[in-house]
């Protein structure tokens, strides 16, 4: 069972006296949907980039099944906040990008890309250009592109941050459906407290100055959704409201009022 472990990780950026992250430990195994939340400057994105291999930690270790991570790899595909799609390619070619890198035959590439576009509910949009797509559609193409790499870990950096509230809600259920279908382990950064509760199996709360882990919650709302309970009912559950209050307190704990 693949397991991504960040152990006592510190991150320092050039020219900054204080470390961005200090001794943070996060553990993501397959079946997990781990969500990182916290106020601005708590190092959420830094930790995600360390997990991706895009940023080298100043201290601590990052390993997948005990093997240290030294560079980015398709094993840990990232979806960025600003989709980072390639505008010179069609939606289908964007999705097939990882397959093209591996030298997969064009016909096979197309078949698999179309299957993934269908998975993110974009069937029939393969020929469209990126700039013709709405923000929500672009994020779904970005998601499909990451899934095409057949990663063991999906790293999501506020993928829904730029979307409007309605689109975001629809994308949350899409994310959960994909997570269920592919059983990929997810590590996600978000600003949204409710989003963290809806999606996560574990919520890691970070605090800034320097960024560090202050609390970890185990939650079961996303599993309830996958078991068939409508999202509206889950959100109306008093337990959800209580968890939201507790999580909000944890996030803003220690902040000067």
């Amino acid at each position, binding site marked *: 069972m693949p397991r991504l472990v960040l152990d006592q990780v510190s991150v320092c950026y050039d020219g900054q006296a204080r470390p961005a992250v200090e001794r943070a430990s996060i553990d993501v195994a397959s079946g997990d949907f781990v969500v990182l939340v916290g106020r601005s400057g708590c190092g959420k994105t830094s930790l995600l980039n360390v997990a991706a291999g895009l940023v080298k930690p100043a201290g601590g270790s990052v390993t997948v099944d005990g093997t240290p991570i030294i560079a980015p790899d398709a094993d840990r*595909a990232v979806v960025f906040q600003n989709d980072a799609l390639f505008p*010179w390619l069609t939606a289908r070619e964007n999705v097939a990008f990882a397959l093209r890198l591996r030298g997969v035959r064009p016909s096979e590439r197309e078949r698999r890309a179309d299957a993934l576009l269908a998975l993110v509910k974009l069937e029939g949009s393969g020929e469209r250009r990126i700039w013709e797509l709405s923000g929500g559609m672009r994020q779904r193409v970005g998601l499909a592109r990451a899934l095409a790499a057949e990663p063991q870990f999906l790293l999501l950096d506020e993928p829904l941050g730029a979307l409007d509230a309605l689109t975001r809600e629809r994308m949350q259920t899409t994310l959960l459906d994909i997570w269920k279908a592919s059983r990929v382990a997810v590590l996600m950064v978000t600003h949204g407290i409710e989003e963290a509760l809806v999606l996560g199996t574990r919520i890691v709360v970070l605090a800034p100055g320097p960024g560090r882990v202050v609390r970890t919650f185990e939650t079961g709302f996303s599993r309830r959704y996958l078991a068939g309970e409508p999202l509206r009912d889950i959100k109306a559950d008093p337990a959800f409201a209580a968890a939201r209050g507790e999580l909000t307190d944890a996030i803003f704990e220690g902040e000067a009022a």
Partner: protein
Amino acid sequence: MTISSYAERPSRKLDETDTVSVPRPSRKRATISARFVSALTILSVLGVWALSALLQLVSPVFLPSPAAVWSKFMAVASDGFVDATLLQHIAASLWRVFAALVAAVLVGVPVGLAIGISTVGRGIFDPLLEFLRPIPPLAYLPLVIIWFGIGEPSKILVIAIAMLAPVALSTASGVRGVSQERINAARSLGATRGQVVRYVILPSALPSILTGQRIALGVGWSTLVAAELVAATRGLGFMIQSAAQFLVTDVVVMGILVIAAIAFVLEFAIRRIERALVPWAGRE
């Protein structure tokens, strides 16, 4: 084309708000387009030119009349000037400019890539380009002749050297402008360094690379006359120079206008090519 349409749009918008909120009497002035003003300017210049020739304010040796230039154009087009027709002169010059462009792109794009991608590349090529860039073609022309003789390669080389800096520097700035997020996305999808360059950096920089070629073409035309100074028997620059030696001013003026017209057409064509090749530019 693009410039005038940019100028038109806001003026129309201004007009709409005018009618909604504060209808002013000077509405008509706001609807004058830049293109209209440009046409008016060109017509006035032609008018002043024709009038001064008609009234013989200046000797025809200094300024031949538009009619004289036009008839010379027809004459050179059919009978030629110094052993070649106008079309042959144009063909010779176009060949030199485009051969130089191909050479400048073959060298300049990889150099620009190297500058944009690697510190070592920047360290090597930046000072060389900065050294080369401000030198006028007439200054290195003698050296090129001493080294490579007076044949066709020297002429193409002189133009290509002048084109090199704009091609390389535009490429470099395009490469540096590639979004880090896009590169990171490709790397996290398993792209090697070489694949990142080929599949992400090059296409991202393509708009800048094309802009560099547009600038280079302009530079090429302005270098053409210098390149054709030596031992040319054909070419627009050569035609103008030999006409100047015999004070055939109407051919000089005609040659200048032909070069301007060709440069205009090329500029228009390459803008169309840009739109076809990089339709995403400015739409992301």
